[in-house]
């Protein structure tokens, strides 16, 4: 056993379900205790989709422990899909079903025979595997099972490997990478597994190369495609303008493009083209100049932490005091990528260690996961989220890419906005905080100058129990009630009486 206070990575079945439900027309049978259907909560809360998640739950209850679960699983499959088989059915388990000795391979074969549709059992290991490792294994299995050799496309093309339902700013990143690739004359052959059909998977080998914006969850699949179909892996991730430049150079070296962006006048006026060079302009402004006397702290997934650290150090010249990742499997590559940067590199998935490093380095800005955002709030340090794990900010309503030119622009804003700079900052440094800015514990809620009401200490104590955001309204209505009754003193009795008689 190990003691864990917080995990930066979700368990295996989140990766498998996330991958499977990304596929077009796929459905999932989840064999698990009822509570594990929280995967549906993740799906519906973050994706805000009109569809229910395509997951049917086969609940493991006490009875199944003694009587076995096979019959119940078969019954669930028959009842749900006999009349309308899905295009693809996945059987997924969590820890509980893994511990029971259920012959899923036999059930899989039976289901395929009954439904006449491909049924795939993805074995998961909840005790050892993480979400990203499981997603990678899921994709590799799909490639292994469904791809066949295909002729390369006539025009240069790439596959995007790894975008999926729970990906980081996935929708925005896809749009931006698509714009960037088209302007380089490169087509997208298949996106996998995001909204991919079986045909899209079969067609993967036709691309000239493979791109992944999340190597932590796709290295295995990329290596498999390289081995089987001789498809090179594009290693650079186009985060930041220099990152984009290296990305284009790598594509050019692979012979996919001449490296020249072909942009229309419209693109240059108000499209992607109008964002080119903005970060460079920003980096040479009076505001950015002030960043140089500060220090940033970066922590996140491999891709995000590398991209953001290099962007800060190489493009904004914003010193990075420490850069870390929780992607343990990519530790060596992480060190390699940041070898040229003057920063302290660290690898850990223990949030207490991250917290300690923040305390030790005393950064002016924290760019990390949602966990560090809360630590930052505790320590009163500005922060922004630049990495998974899954949280609401990963699924913005608006267009907020991290890659490409508009991604670089977004990143610059994300870094700059939490900071206080300019004259305001100088004044604070010169003269300290303005006393009036320091918030009182009990906010003054009313204009008290001709207020003759007295609150008894008991009533006042009770008032403080009301959440602060509704406290002013509650106080106002209680005081109005007291005035209406011609009471001068607000006692506990009067307070409850007022509360009970509110409204109407």
């Amino acid at each position, binding site marked *: 056993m190990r003691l864990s206070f917080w995990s930066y990575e979700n368990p295996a079945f989140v990766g498998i379900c996330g991958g499977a439900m990304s596929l077009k027309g796929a459905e999932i049978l989840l064999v698990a205790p009822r509570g594990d259907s929280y995967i549906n909560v993740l799906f519906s809360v973050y994706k805000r989709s*009109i569809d229910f998640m395509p997951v049917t739950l086969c609940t493991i209850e006490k009875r199944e422990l003694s009587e076995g679960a096979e019959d119940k699983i078969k019954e669930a499959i028959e009842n749900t899909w006999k009349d309308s088989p899905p295009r693809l059915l996945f059987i997924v388990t969590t820890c509980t079903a893994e511990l029971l000795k259920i012959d899923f391979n036999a059930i899989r074969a039976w289901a395929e025979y009954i439904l006449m549709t491909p049924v795939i059992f993805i074995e998961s290991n909840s005790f050892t595997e993480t979400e990203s490792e499981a997603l990678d294994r899921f994709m590799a299995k799909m490639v292994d099972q469904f791809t066949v050799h295909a002729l390369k496309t006539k025009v240069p093309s790439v596959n995007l490997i790894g975008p999926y339902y729970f990906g980081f700013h996935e929708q925005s990143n896809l749009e931006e990478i698509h714009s960037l690739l088209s302007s380089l004359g490169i087509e997208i052959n298949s996106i996998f597994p995001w909204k991919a059909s079986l045909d899209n998977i079969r067609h993967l080998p036709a691309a000239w190369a493979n791109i992944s914006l999340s190597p932590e969850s796709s290295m295995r699949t990329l290596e498999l495609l390289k081995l089987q179909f001789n498809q090179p892996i594009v290693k650079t991730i186009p985060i930041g303008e220099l990152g984009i430049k290296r990305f284009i150079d790598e594509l050019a070296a692979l012979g996919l493009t001449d490296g020249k962006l072909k942009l229309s006048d419209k693109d240059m006026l108000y499209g992607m083209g109008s964002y080119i060079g903005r970060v460079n302009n920003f980096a040479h402004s009076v505001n950015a100049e002030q960043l140089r006397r500060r220090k940033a702290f970066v922590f996140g997934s491999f891709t995000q932490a590398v991209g953001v650290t290099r962007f800060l150090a190489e493009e904004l010249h914003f010193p990075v005091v420490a850069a870390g990742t929780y992607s343990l499997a990519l530790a060596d590559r992480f060190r390699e990528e940041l070898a040229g940067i003057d920063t302290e590199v660290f690898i850990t998935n223990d949030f207490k260690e991250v917290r300690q490093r923040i305390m030790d380095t005393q950064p002016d800005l924290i760019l990390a996961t949602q966990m560090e955002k809360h630590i930052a709030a505790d320590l009163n340090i500005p922060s922004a989220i630049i990495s998974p794990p899954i949280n609401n900010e990963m699924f913005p309503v608006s267009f907020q890419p991290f890659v490409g030119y508009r991604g670089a622009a977004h990143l610059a804003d994300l870094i700059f906005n939490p900071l206080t700079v300019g004259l305001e900052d100088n004044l604070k440094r010169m003269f300290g905080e303005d006393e009036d800015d320091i918030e009182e514990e009990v906010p003054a809620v009313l204009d008290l100058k001709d207020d003759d009401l007295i609150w008894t200490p008991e009533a006042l104590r009770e008032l403080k129990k009301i959440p602060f955001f509704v406290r002013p309204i509650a106080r106002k209505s209680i005081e109005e009630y007291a005035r209406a009754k011609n009471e001068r003193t607000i006692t506990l009795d009067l307070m409850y009486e007022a509360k009970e008689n509110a409204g109407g």
Partner: protein
Amino acid sequence: MRNIEDRAGCFFSFCPLAAIGWLHRKIKNSFYLVIGSPVCESFIQNAFGMMLFAKPRFATAVIEEYDLFLGTSPKRILEFAKEIANDYKIDVLFLLETCPSQLLKLDVARWAEIASAELEIPVINVPISGLDASFTEGEDSILSSLVDLCPSDVHRPNLILVGSLAGSVESEFLYEFRNLKHPVSFLPPAAIGELPPISEKTTAVLLHPYLEQTRKKLAARGCNIVSTVFPLGASASRQFFEDVFNALGVSAKGLAEREANIFARNAELHGRIFGKKFFFFPDTQLEIPLARFLSSLGGEIVELSVPKINTKLLSKELEFLDNGIAIIERADFNEQMNKILLTRPDLIIAPLALTTPLLQKGYKVKHSMDFVLLPIQGFSNHRSLVELFTNAMI
């Protein structure tokens, strides 16, 4: 006889571990160590967000592969308990069993004994498992474990209110009982040192319909358990306080006037419930008292489904529930969706997993968790309770 049907279907609800999300706020300096898998850990994280973890009150003793083959030494758990006690101020440590820990037959009860002796604070084993418990029953497991720790040596009459309540509701209930001679206390208490004494002279009243194990434990300790309704809405609150006062041999004054007064003031608001059709998905076990409440205001209950029903605990509730309303246990999700198409309800009370897609499909939906985590009990919350429904129908 009321029509109760068990469909043994698949429905979407939470894992009972969720209860620690609100109990850690109730019991000061309590810490929760989940003995489970990474699946359990990620559930708690995703259910309650990270704010809780920046100042941890929970941790997971993550079962690893070798535990499956070699078993786990109590020494490991003791090390973890010591680490937690060193790093955080804790007065009580709960060791929570889970589906995998129960499947692996880990002897968590013994670990708790060993750790308790070593650390000199209560270390309590809580057998929570999603294999047989529903979402809110996590609170039941924890409270029933606490009953074992309540002192029994004080043999004078007292009143215990059982079930976690918002701070403002607790104050209000204490206020209602201010003239009693009996000492009044809460389970869970605000601090572990304040566990109420339990004896044959104790009167206990349960505040939530999902506290069946706790009810059994209290009954076994000889408590007098007041049979009443759950204080949701002014009428039920009146009934609730009347029943408690009667059980204590005290006469209640002015309750009916207060009820009438609240009804008179809120007539317009009640009109927005009248004639509307309500559909309950199974989730929190609060479905029956809430349906009773809506039905008493003239709402039509087109579906009343619950994860499970504790008929003993709910006997008085069921008396007040319109006999024509059928109750469905463990409803089947697909069947319920068909029923929604047929009945076109005005408001659906749904678990978190279904709320967004139902809203997207154009239904009016109230997320059921709000009834667990908002102050809705007692006279003064009557209006807020009605508004939870009416606001969702706008």
